[in-house]
């Protein structure tokens, strides 16, 4: 009886939140230019919770005015189990509107993800734990920060060395820099990837693992984002005194919209309530 009452209350509360979302108008800070590269970045999504679905509704709502055609997932795509039903409950159902609209998701693996996800058709990993794809003049590197072995380091070195793309963007699960109290910076990963990123002009890195949003002050010219509040939230986890933080948000779920117009990357971060919690631009550096 108590469980039923709780479920009813939970549904009622979620409906209120959803109503609130509907009432919140879409407010775009991005230029929404013709022929620009438009995408979404999100992580730590795979709960299948009502909150994940509510955020997905906001993502779909924004797509109606800002037609991004792909999304990057920074890992933890599936919490708690990976049966066929889990793929549906934790990914296909929440993002049905986006998938139906043709949005292509590119996944990377987190510490809660089994390697077999690399075969899943809707994650577009083509059987690889780490891979590269191109969109216009931008090259995207999906990395497996959970198992960065000799093979992956060699692959990154080789691929980055021959890459002449205007924008080089990396995404992975563990954040080389973080102000999180629970996890903090993944210094082991940083020691390996940062020299490569610097050497080869990687401009921007998207990560997750921490269940909040954080934009790190540029480190050696590179901008690091944490966008790990796509399905889970660790409220109040960001250390107030961290010297790393340029902007942080840890009181609600959130996702990022990104637009690349020539040498400028624009970004906007939106919460589950539809509030814009951060926005700005990054200029591509001279190579």
């Amino acid at each position, binding site marked *: 009886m108590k469980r039923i009452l709780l479920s009813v209350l939970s549904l009622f509360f979620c409906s209120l939140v959803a109503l609130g979302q509907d009432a919140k108008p879409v407010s775009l800070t991005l230029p929404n230019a013709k022929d620009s590269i438009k995408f979404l970045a999100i992580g730590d999504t795979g709960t299948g919770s009502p909150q994940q679905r509510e955020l997905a509704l906001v993502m779909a709502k924004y797509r109606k005015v800002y037609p991004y055609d792909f999304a990057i997932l920074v890992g933890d795509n599936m919490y708690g189990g990976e049966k066929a039903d889990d793929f549906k409950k934790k990914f296909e159902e929440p993002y049905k509107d986006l998938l139906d609209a043709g949005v292509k998701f590119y996944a990377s693996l987190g*510490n809660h993800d089994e390697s077999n996800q690399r*075969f899943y058709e809707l994650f577009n990993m083509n059987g690889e734990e780490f891979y590269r794809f191109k969109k216009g003049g931008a090259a995207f590197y999906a990395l497996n920060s959970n198992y960065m072995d000799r093979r992956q380091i060699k692959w990154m070195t080789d691929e980055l060395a021959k890459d002449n793309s205007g924008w080089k963007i990396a995404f992975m699960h563990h954040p080389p820099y973080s102000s999180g109290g629970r996890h903090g910076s*993944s210094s082991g990963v940083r020691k390996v990837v940062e020299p490569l990123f610097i050497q080869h002009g990687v401009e921007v890195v998207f990560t997750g693992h921490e269940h909040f949003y954080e934009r790190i002050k540029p480190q050696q010219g590179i901008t690091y984002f944490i966008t790990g509040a796509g399905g889970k939230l660790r409220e109040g986890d960001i250390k107030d005194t961290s010297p790393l933080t340029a902007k942080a948000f840890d009181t609600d779920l959130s996702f990022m919209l990104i637009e690349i117009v020539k040498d400028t990357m624009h970004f906007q971060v939106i919460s589950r309530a539809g509030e814009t919690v951060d926005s700005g631009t990054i200029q591509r550096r001279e190579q």
Partner: protein
Amino acid sequence: MRNIRIISFAFAILAFLSAGASAQQVLSAADKRIIADFEKRANAYYQFRERIEGRLKKLPDNATPEQIQIYKTSFQQSVQMARRRATQGELFTPAATSLIRRIIKTEFVGWKRSELRKSVLEADTKAVPLKINVPYPESQELVEMLPQLLLVLPQMPRALRFRFVSRNLVILDRENALIIDFMRNALP
């Protein structure tokens, strides 16, 4: 100019790999023989599981969730059946266990207890059974392996993974999720 940059970068990477391989540099001839034996055993398991996988329906790179589940389950059951008489220590022999423990200890020298706890011990792996030939539970997270450590541990075929489970080290088959072998108290 570009060539110079590439060459200098190659040197930087070599320097990084050499620095990372510091623990290996102090290995004796006997240690190297132990590593060679470990890698041979890992390869033997790999060849064995490849033969089993070859008999299963190949999983395409654009699989459905149902195909992934069927593949994993059938692969898991086939290997479990074929290895039903396997025992702990087939890869982690006493000599390999002792050497790997030493390599890990060397790599973690200077680490604060709090750092170790944050990166390894706090992970949710309590429900992982320390038994061979059983699946690593899907509900349990996979501890991030330090890249520096992976550079100095023995090299295994790509389907095999080292993973910490609390203080212990397991070898996991990434496709069928089975624990192939384990050693206790790997962490200092």
